[in-house]
């Protein structure tokens, strides 16, 4: 078998996956609601995606030295923002560019006041089960959970905005040089103390 895949072909080759959904439905404990127990490791992924993950030069992007920002104040006095890479946007925002071979490094600003049921998930990756996050967006963008923490006083306050990226960025140069520092500056301008990030 030929393994001469380009990076993007390998990403797209993951499209035969449907793996987590099928595993859920074939699980003996599956009762109609989603039920998941297994670990996500390379071994769980399809051959195509495994080949991609094994060959991708993740070590090129090792963060060194490790930045370390201590919380300036206790969490129950801190301003908190969320960042997700689940490709979420509100209905009135433009879609992410799913045709960009390197991955679309742009972001969408999600207002804190949004009704989370109105968020649209349009991530291009085939390597995960989209139905789960579409049935409960809090799975990858837990804004309702953080609203509960805010009302309980466990966190000081939620920031007035949060940020969403579409995570399948194979060539992250523009992310590293442009959009990630841009969002970091916006969060600093907002005087955010702590950020909680979720992949999908």
């Amino acid at each position, binding site marked *: 078998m030929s393994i001469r895949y380009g990076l993007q072909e390998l990403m797209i080759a993951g499209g035969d996956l449907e793996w987590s959904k099928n595993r859920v439905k074939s699980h003996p404990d599956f009762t109609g609601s989603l039920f998941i127990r297994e670990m996500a490791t390379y071994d769980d992924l399809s051959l195509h995606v495994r080949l991609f993950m094994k060959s991708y030069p993740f070590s090129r992007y090792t963060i060194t030295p490790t*930045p370390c*920002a201590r919380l300036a104040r206790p969490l129950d006095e801190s301003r908190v923002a969320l960042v997700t890479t689940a490709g979420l946007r509100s209905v009135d925002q433009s879609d992410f560019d799913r045709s960009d071979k390197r*991955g679309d490094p742009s972001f969408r600003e999600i207002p804190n006041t949004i009704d989370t049921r109105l968020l649209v998930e349009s991530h291009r990756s085939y390597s*995960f089960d989209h139905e*789960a996050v579409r049935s409960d967006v809090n799975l990858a963008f837990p804004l309702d959970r953080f609203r509960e923490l805010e009302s309980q006083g466990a966190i000081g306050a939620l920031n007035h905005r949060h940020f969403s990226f579409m995570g399948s960025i194979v060539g992250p140069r523009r992310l590293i040089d442009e959009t990630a520092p841009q969002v970091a500056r916006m969060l600093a301008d907002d005087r955010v103390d702590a950020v*909680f990030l*979720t992949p999908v």
Partner: protein
Amino acid sequence: MCQQTVCLLQAAIERAGIGTVSISLLREVTSVIKPPRALFVPFPMGYPLGEPNNAPLQHRIIAAALGLLERDDVPVLDEFIR
């Protein structure tokens, strides 16, 4: 690639002086990229906070992750035990 994107965003935000913590679905990726603080969760891709419509589980995962914000012995890669 979502995992790598999270790590890179996290590094940029932490460099701006803001404490960060992320969820990791792929230990292999997170352990190589080494963001400041991450909580590995034993769930498949697409399920970073465990299960849809299971607020108690989602809260347990969030609480475990937020607990890591206290840590300055970075990089920290902890594991959520269900």
